[in-house]
Every structure is written in structure tokens, then in C-alpha cells.
């Protein structure tokens, strides 16, 4: 790459991907949002307020932790974990919700809506809404409400109204549909905080910009601790916000390999998975063109993953572009493999990862031994596993 990476174009296109595929009623609010985003992202007061919140409220910078015991055990590359699990609310999601909520405040919006899968984005949104005194409604698939009860309770404690979505497959994509329906109805006073790098422009670029704090810190920390850049980056990809946050600041660093880990569910060959980049095709959903899981009639196929946060049939459009240009390699990890990653990190390092992040851990289990001891992998530990205790205990036949 000789030219500096600079995507998207001004209309939100990453090559053929991205764009603004929305109903007419949403054109005005997304253009209004884009104008505010362009204005405040270079506004020193806004940046200062955001940085102060990230430091004092979220607890940034998050550590870059050298997992020495695990590295030694695998006998290959040195593994460094970017500890997004240590952020306030327990995942990377809050980096973005704080940014968007501060933007909402500047735009004079009084009501916040969000969609959530695993509940991490919902919790992060409810958290910042509580702090800023904004009304908050979170849409969550009815299936996810069942499997993530703890997070539902957290959101309610924080004062948010959680709406269980009963349409379609009752998971994350349906929560997004319902949030879009709410937005179209309440555009005047409502700000829609999308939790991942999907949706219509400017969301994919804006959410990315709020999440690149992960990669910017990791780069500095790696140089400070190891004296050089890493050889590889690993992150799980559902919509892809934690991955793009880690990857983006390294895109122009040619020597750094990047691996995005999709959820293979029961296995990509079974069709029961959530891996559009590995096994899908380009299409249009939720405001952007991207790789999707769709059948020959263009209907969206139901996805499967042990992890609610990865259970989504699309992916951020920038990932589609990074796949096509070959900058990021997208791989996949089954439910069973993800559990191996979950136990490995828990037992080797005393850190319980979220099931989403466990996919990245599981790929690290495969990758690290193929590399030499003087090489470095940074793995994004995007969230902590507390929310998954019920799921895990149930799998082990334990009642809690």
C-alpha cells in the first residue's frame, strides 16, 4: 500500500460497500447526524470532553497485558491482550456510546434509542443515558432477552426501558429493525445510538472513529512495552466494532497481519453460523451494502452462534472492503472451539472472557503456535464473561 488508507468517501462508500440505503424519512436525520459528526470530531471542546470521560468515567487507557503464562504454554508468539473487558460496563461498547451520547446532547436530542444483542451495547447505552439524564429505550430480540437476563436487569436498573422484540428471528437483526421503526416515528427528538460499525453512513465511520482509541492505545503500548509493532492482530467480528477499533490504526502498517474471527456456530459447512464474510455474499441490509447471509431470493437467513453478540447476519461495510482488498484475513471459529478459548484464558490467565471475545481467544490458540517466540500477537479482549455465567453454567449442567 503506497497511498494512505482513507475510507470511506464523502457519501460513506467503502468501494462498493456502505452507503445510505434508508427510507426517505431517515435521510434528513442521517444528514443532520453527519453534519454534527463532521463538525464535532474536529471540535477541540468536544474532543476534550470525550477524552475526559474516557479517562475518568470509562477508566482508559485500558491495559495491554502480556499473557506470559498462556504464551509459554502455547509455545509460540508472545500474546498481548488489549483489556477492553476492564472498561466501565465491561466491554469496548462504552467507547462508542459515550461518543454518540455526547453528540446527541450537543444536537439537543432528549431521547436515546439503541439495539442490543448480548446486551453489552444496551447496558453501555443505558449507562451513559443515566449519567446524562436522557430517556433511553433499548430494543432487544425476545430470544436474547431470555439468554441475557442479567444484562436486561442491569439496563432496567439504569432506568432504561427494554423492549423485547417478537418479530422475525427475535434476535439482534430484528432489534435493529425495530429500533429503525422507532427512529422513523420519533425522528424529531430521538438519537439512535447504533452499537456497531454498520447502519447507514455516517454510522460505520463514526462508530469506528470512536472505537479506534483501542488501536491507537494498543500501538503506543506495544511500542512502549515491546519496543516494536506487533506481528498480528486478532479480534472477533460480529458487526465488527471492536475489530475495526483495533485494526484501523494499523492498516497502513504493512507488516502487521490482521485476523477477523467470525462465529461459525455449528460449523460453516452446516449453514448454522454467523459468518457472512466467510460464507455470505454482498447485499443490502440495515442501511448499507455489505456481506450478508441471504438466500437466493434475498431473504435474510437466520444466524446461529453461542454468543448473542455475534449472532448477526451482516457485518460492517468496512470489513467487506478490507476483505476484498485482502488487508484483513477473515477466519471462523465454531461454538465448540470458542469454548476452548474461553476455558484456556480462564484457566491460564485468570481472566474470564465474554463468549464473543472467546472466539478471538480460540483463534489465538491456533495461531500462536505457528509463530515464533519473538513474534507478537495482540488479541482484543473485547468484553468480560460475567454476562455469560448462566449460559456456561447451563452447559455444564450446573444450576446457579
Amino acid at each position, binding site marked *: 500500500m503506497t497511498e494512505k488508507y482513507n475510507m470511506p468517501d464523502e457519501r460513506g462508500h467503502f468501494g462498493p460497500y456502505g452507503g445510505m440505503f*434508508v427510507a426517505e424519512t431517515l435521510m434528513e436525520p442521517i444528514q443532520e447526524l453527519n453534519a454534527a459528526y463532521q463538525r464535532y470530531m474536529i471540535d477541540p471542546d468536544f474532543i476534550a470532553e470525550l477524552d475526559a470521560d474516557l479517562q475518568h468515567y470509562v477508566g482508559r487507557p485500558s491495559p495491554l497485558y502480556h499473557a506470559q503464562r498462556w504464551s509459554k504454554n502455547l509455545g509460540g508468539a508472545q500474546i498481548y491482550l488489549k483489556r477492553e473487558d476492564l472498561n466501565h460496563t465491561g466491554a469496548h461498547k462504552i467507547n462508542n456510546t459515550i461518543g454518540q451520547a455526547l453528540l446527541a446532547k450537543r444536537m439537543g436530542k432528549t431521547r436515546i434509542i439503541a439495539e442490543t444483542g448480548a446486551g453489552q451495547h444496551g447496558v453501555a447505552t443505558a449507562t451513559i443515558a443515566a449519567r446524562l439524564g436522557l430517556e433511553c429505550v433499548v430494543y432487544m430480540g425476545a430470544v436474547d432477552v431470555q439468554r441475557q437476563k442479567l444484562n436486561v436487569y442491569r439496563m432496567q436498573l439504569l432506568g432504561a426501558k427494554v423492549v423485547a422484540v417478537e*418479530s422475525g428471528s427475535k434476535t439482534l437483526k430484528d432489534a435493529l429493525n425495530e429500533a429503525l421503526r422507532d427512529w422513523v416515528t420519533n425522528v424529531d427528538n430521538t438519537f439512535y445510538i447504533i452499537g456497531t460499525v454498520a447502519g447507514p453512513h455516517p454510522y460505520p465511520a463514526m462508530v469506528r472513529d470512536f472505537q479506534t482509541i483501542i488501536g491507537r492505545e494498543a500501538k503506543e503500548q506495544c511500542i512502549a512495552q515491546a519496543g516494536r509493532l506487533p506481528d498480528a492482530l486478532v479480534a472477533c467480528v460480529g458487526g465488527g466494532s471492536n475489530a475495526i477499533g483495533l485494526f484501523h490504526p494499523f492498516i497502513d502498517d504493512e507488516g502487521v497481519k490482521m485476523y477477523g474471527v467470525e462465529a461459525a456456530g455449528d460449523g460453516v459447512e452446516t449453514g448454522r453460523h454467523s459468518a457472512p464474510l466467510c460464507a455470505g455474499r454482498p447485499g443490502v441490509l440495515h442501511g448499507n451494502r455489505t456481506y450478508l447471509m441471504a438466500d437466493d431470493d434475498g431473504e435474510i437467513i437466520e444466524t446461529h452462534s453461542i454468543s448473542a453478540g455475534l449472532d448477526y447476519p451482516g457485518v460492517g461495510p468496512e470489513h467487506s472492503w478490507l476483505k476484498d482488498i485482502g488487508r484483513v484475513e477473515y477466519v471462523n471459529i465454531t461454538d465448540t472451539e470458542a469454548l476452548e478459548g474461553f476455558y484456556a484464558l480462564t484457566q491460564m490467565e485468570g481472566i474470564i472472557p465474554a463468549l464473543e471475545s472467546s472466539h478471538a481467544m480460540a483463534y489465538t490458540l491456533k495461531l500462536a503456535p505457528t509463530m515464533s517466540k519473538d513474534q507478537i500477537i495482540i488479541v482484543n479482549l473485547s468484553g468480560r464473561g460475567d454476562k455469560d455465567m448462566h449460559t456456561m453454567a447451563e452447559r455444564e449442567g450446573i444450576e446457579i
Partner: protein
Amino acid sequence: MSRLAAKFEQLKANNRKALIPFITAGDPNPEFTVPMMHEMVKAGADVIELGVPFSDPMADGPVIQRASERALELHMGLRKVLDMVAEFRKTDNDIPVVLMGYLNPIEIMGYEVFADKAQQAGVDGVLTVDLPPEESEDCIDLFKDRGIDQIFLLAPNSNAERVKKMDAIGSGYIYYVSLKGVTGAGHLNTDDVKEKLAMIKEHTSLPIGIGFGVKDAKTAKTVADIGDGVVVGSALISKIEANLDNPEQAKQEIIELLQSMRNAMDS
């Protein structure tokens, strides 16, 4: 001249407004749709909007969402919807048929393949909810070359610039969404619609169909007095939903509702 342009010209000459019913193809079953289309024509429909079922109907309210779900359970998809239009065309070469839905089914089929098939089937217009003018440059010429009108939506918060943009590239008619919300929601505010239509008419000579919130003969009449056409969807589909065990009854109720709207609009 396209069937849509001819139809609106003819209506104008007769000083009438277009009655445009919407049903979802394949709801409540695939055998229901084509005979229902013919019956709607007899009841006074001038244009038919045929909904292409989609798994993720983001702009639709619960009534049309459930219609989509029922049709999808019976594996109704874009390819079968095109077959239905072809079937309808065997005995009706006059009434324009507009496919209404979301972009992904067309995107997955491929714009050119779809344009060819739609032309062969006798489709007159395409209205994709999630395809604003900004993103339509890859398909609009393919459609135009085959005599298919691209119908855009305008909303209460669309400004004059957007009307001009749609006037420049759209054809057939423009669909004015009368309220901020999803299909089947709330009540439309006549004064607001009137005011908005005045602005729209300043910037386009395309006919304006008005939809969202048309429930009965009275609202149909009110809307007909403001625009060039009246779109009614959820109110018809509610009849199907209320008679899932008796589609014939649904058909009768739809016919009666359309006739009452036609009479009110013509009075």
C-alpha cells in the same frame, strides 16, 4: 408511453384520482394473490402495488410485517412474485403493476437480471423503500431502458432539493409518505399533507400518490382531494389477517372496502 404514465394521463383527463391498493404477494397463500388482483381492478383499482415479502421489513408496521412473515413461511420470494405478475398479465394488459419492497431481493438477483425478468413479466414500476435517489445510479438506467418506472418516496421532512432530485430521475409517480412512522401507523394530518403537497407540486409535475394512514372511505376521499392517488395497504391486509381461516371472506371484505373508497373518491 409507460402504462403508469398512460393511466395517470387518462385519469387526469377524466378528472379522477387513482386508487392504488397494496397487498403482499402470497398472503395468506399463493393462490389468493392473482385472483385478488383481478377483483381489485373490478372494484375500482387503477394501479396495483404488489408487496414483495422481505424478512426484514424495516419501514413497515406490524400488519404488513406479519403479512410478509405469512408469505415467507410459504416460501414466497421475488422469483415467484414475478411469476404472479406474468400470470396477471395474461388477462390484464391495462392496469399498471408496481412491485413494492426492499432492495436486497433485487440486489441478490442482480439489477440487470431483475430488470429483464420484470420487463418480461409485465412489471411497470419498482418502489424500493430503502433505495433513495442517492444510491440508485446503478439501477435506474437499467430500469428506464426497459420501460420500468422507478418510484421514489417523499416524506414529511423531505426538502425541496429532494423533490427536485426525484423529479429529475424518478418517473411514473412519487409516493408521499403522509406521516413520520411505519406503514399502518396513526392518523394523517390533512392540513400538514396539504401544505406539503403544495411545496412538492411546485417542484415536480409527476403525479403524487399519498399513503400511510389511509384507513377507510373517508380518509381516501380526503387524500384524493389533495393528491393524485390514494395508496391503501394495511387496511386491506387487516382484512386478510382477520379472516385467515376464510380467505374468501377476506376477499369480499377487501372488495367492499375498495368499492366504498372508489365511490367516495368519485363523489
